[in-house]
């Protein structure tokens, strides 16, 4: 345990430093890089400490900070973590550290504010993952839009204005509906604390409506089919680091919200609708994989692949509803699979967006037809990229396999059909990943008109670290399981206990 408010520090220090970086007029690029690098390293170290100190033998909330915030409305400044939060906080800190390394070798106009926005984003993300008061959660959840909006809008590509507005309005629309459900729940339970929502008595109809609001709110964030269309646009226009943080951490906020709100609050309605929601996830997995295969733009391809992979996350979550009555252990496996898939997708998609960013830097084009034969000029890079593509297609030994395997196992517990359909994803994701690898890396290219040069030291470091962790999670995922196990079991058990 710590004798200082560790979560508040993790949230507010990056936000404050980020604001200073944005508002300071004459700060040199190198100084701001140094600050960002040191700070994000420090945050990574502190969050590793947090994970070490976290007592993973229990599903109780830990490191609780609870102060009355708006007394008349019963809103608290309530921070805490459980295993699910800890793993996502670790992911956030880790990815932000990699972005800080990567960005320090890049050139951006007004770099200090660029880095500042990322620091703010990091603080807000950690806040989202550790807020246990629903209004506080909503505030962090919603504030995330601001820095990302500006990152994409200021440093993005040609069509960025359309993409940013679409992204902002889509997600805002989802979250305001969620806000209504939160207020409604608070009206009934008399408190805004998320845990008090769990014991609220709702009529079935109310529960159904609240479930739909949560489904829309978090589903847009994840994003689920059919509300995923903002993601490819946002990804294509975002700068590399923006895409990385968007794919690897921001999408996870949706999954996290589902686990935190939807599962425990609207269990009965969820059980009622679980089959339909599972079909939605399967559509995301299968249909979007085909869409991904048809893409000409590398970023779009990976963006659609993200939607498909996040389909596994939602599948794992919805399977909990489906299996709660019949097969609790399969439900637990499903939820664990969803968690592992979130972390693993966080690493793999980050890696792939870094790779695309590196290729784009040389060829100034993200289209598959403009990029070919990279392997001849960038052998080390190509080795790494093909590894990430393999991981993306769920090769055993990489982290991509673990999550999908668990979710598929769990879905077999529900029905053979679900398991079969989910498993087709291994084939489909391999086909589009390898298609991309084949064209981009191994095409025939004698002239090198694109000007490919082997990637720089920073980039190698970033990619190597990612390889190490993807392999580590793929071969010995124990550490991750140790953190999330009790919390996942706690959630599922409290759900099935509530059912009886």
């Amino acid at each position: 345990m710590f004798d200082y408010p560790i979560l508040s520090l993790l949230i507010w220090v990056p936000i404050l430093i980020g604001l200073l970086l944005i508002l300071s007029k004459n700060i040199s690029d190198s100084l701001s890089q140094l600050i960002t690098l040191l700070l994000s390293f420090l945050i990574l170290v502190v969050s590793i400490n947090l994970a070490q100190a976290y007592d993973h033998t229990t599903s109780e909330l830990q490191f609780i900070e609870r102060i009355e915030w708006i007394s008349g409305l019963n809103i608290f400044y309530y921070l805490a973590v459980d295993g699910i939060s800890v793993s996502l906080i670790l992911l956030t800190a880790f990815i932000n550290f990699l972005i800080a390394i990567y960005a320090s070798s890049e050139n951006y106009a007004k770099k200090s504010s660029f880095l500042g926005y990322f620091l703010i984003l990091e603080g807000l993300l950690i806040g989202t993952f550790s807020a246990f008061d629903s209004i506080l959660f909503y505030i962090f959840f919603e504030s995330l839009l601001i820095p990302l909006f500006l990152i994409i809008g200021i440093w993005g590509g040609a069509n960025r204005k359309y993409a940013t507005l679409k992204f902002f309005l889509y997600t805002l629309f989802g979250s305001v509906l969620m806000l209504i459900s939160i207020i409604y729940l608070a009206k009934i339970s008399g408190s805004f604390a998320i845990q008090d929502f769990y014991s609220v008595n709702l009529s079935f109809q109310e529960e159904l409506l609240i479930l739909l609001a949560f489904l829309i709110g978090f589903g847009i964030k994840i994003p689920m089919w059919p509300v995923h269309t903002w993601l490819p646009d946002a990804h294509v226009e975002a700068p590399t680091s923006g895409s990385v943080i968007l794919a690897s951490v921001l999408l996870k906020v949706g999954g996290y919200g589902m686990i935190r709100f939807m599962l425990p609050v609207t269990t009965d309605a969820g059980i009622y609708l679980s089959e339909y929601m599972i079909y939605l996830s399967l559509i995301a997995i299968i249909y979007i994989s085909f869409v991904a295969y048809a893409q000409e733009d590398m970023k779009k391809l990976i963006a659609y692949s993200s939607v498909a992979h996040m389909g596994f996350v939602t599948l794992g979550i919805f399977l909990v509803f489906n299996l709660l009555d019949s097969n609790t252990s399969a439900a637990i496996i499903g939820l664990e699979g969803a968690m592992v898939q979130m972390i693993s997708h966080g690493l793999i998609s980050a890696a792939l967006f870094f790779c695309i960013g590196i290729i784009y830097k040389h060829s100034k084009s993200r289209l598959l037809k403009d990029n070919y034969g990279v392997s001849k000029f960038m052998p080390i890079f190509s080795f790494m990229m093909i590894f990430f593509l393999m991981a993306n297609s769920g090769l055993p030994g990489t982290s991509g396999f673990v999550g999908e395997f668990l979710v598929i196992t769990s879905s077999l517990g529900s029905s053979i059909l679900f398991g079969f359909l989910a498993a087709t994803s291994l084939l489909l994701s391999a086909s589009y990943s390898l298609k991309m690898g084949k064209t981009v890396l191994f095409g025939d290219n004698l002239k090198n008109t694109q000007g490919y040069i082997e990637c720089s030291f920073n980039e190698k470091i970033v990619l190597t670290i990612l390889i190490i962790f993807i392999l580590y999670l793929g071969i010995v995922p124990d550490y991750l399981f140790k953190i999330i196990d009790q919390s996942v079991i706690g959630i599922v058990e409290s759900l099935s206990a509530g059912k009886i």
Partner: protein
Amino acid sequence: MLNILFIPEIILSIGVMIIILFDLFFQKQKGLSFTLVQFLLLIAAYYSLNNKFSPSYSAYTLNEFTNVFKFILLVGSLAIFHYTYKHLKFLKILKIEYFTISLLGLIGTMIMISANSLLMLYLGIELLSLSLYALIGFNKKSSLSSEAAIKYYVLGAMSSGILLFGISLIYGFTGSIAYDDIASQLINIDMDSVDYIAIIFGIIFITASLCFKFGAAPFHMWVPDIYQGSLISTTILLSTLPKIAVFIVFLKLYFIPFILYREVWSDILIFVGMLSIVIGSLFALTQENIKRLLAYSAISNIGFIILSLGLISIDGIQASLYYTVVYSLTALASFGIITHITSNSNGIEKITDLSGLSKTHPYFAFLILITMLSSAGIPPLIGFHAKLMVIKALISSSYIILSIIVVIMTVVSAYYYLKVIKTIYFDNREDLISTYSNNSIILSINVLSLIALGIFPYLLFNLTSYLMRIFSVISI
């Protein structure tokens, strides 16, 4: 310590005369005259907090509630005059008359707040309106300005007529113009009698006229034209002082004399509020002129205030108080920033005049970013908490469908606020854009308070709870 009633009003009235005379003899000393104006406001603000309370049963009440709001108005005017002075000086049309007329309008708003009889209310509204007519037409060189002045004059005179008609109906059937008398008379009126219907008509006429002054839909037609036609400094005044005053009038009128008829006016207010939110949000989408855009945004904000008043619940009243304060702060900030920026030596008119501001003036761009996001209701800024309070009040009164419409409208309105941000941050431009002030401390405080109050919303929450308490003391 002066120990008489009405000190702030008396000080202001006498001060206005002195300043007019002073300005007559020292035409060149504009700065000095302006300092006098500020000094006058400071004294009035000081005495408004330490004012003696009047006996509760009179045509003009002074109590803690009115004192706090007068203080807010006076301090707000200080900021407004600060922005105005710089703006007029830059446009080279600085005249001290502008401030003296504004001060007269300010006295009008103070009378409206303190009014405890319908005639006193009428007097205050007329004093305010007359000075606004003059202020709107102040920019004599612009034809839009004259058009706006005439439009506002004609419509305003008509609405005053409607107000008087409503007042006469109420007077005719209750035999009184004092709020408390009316309240006690209305109890005796039989639900089936003609009197009842006449009173309802009276209330509806008064409501229509007040909604006109408030700028709420469907009486909003004048708002965009007048906002566009007048100087930005007048627009700041128009979008803050009268709104606060009319809000207090709403609060006092409906919750003291007309409270028995709440079934009648509650539905009207909810309808007007919803309509204003919808119209304000939808019509703003296509606006190119920043003043028109902010005018529609004001309409939708007014809608939030009226809607939460119409709920007739403790939550609703508190939400409307909260929203009014937040709205005034935000309007002050957003118009205030625009007074500080010029494009090619002219004031800002079109939204595109602001394009590329973030490259040349990152700090001002940041300030606009904050105000726009706050208006859009994005946390952690204070605008979010205001909208949260209204939605919470709606839900606790079980208006779920309305709350869904309201939040969808906030998403719609987020679009045009984002459009402004988009123009500032993502667009480029070549020609000159400049700000004419190095000394923007008041503006910075104004904008940063939106962040600070957003992070510590309980400050404002406690203030409104306190206001609620003192309001319930006087209303019961």
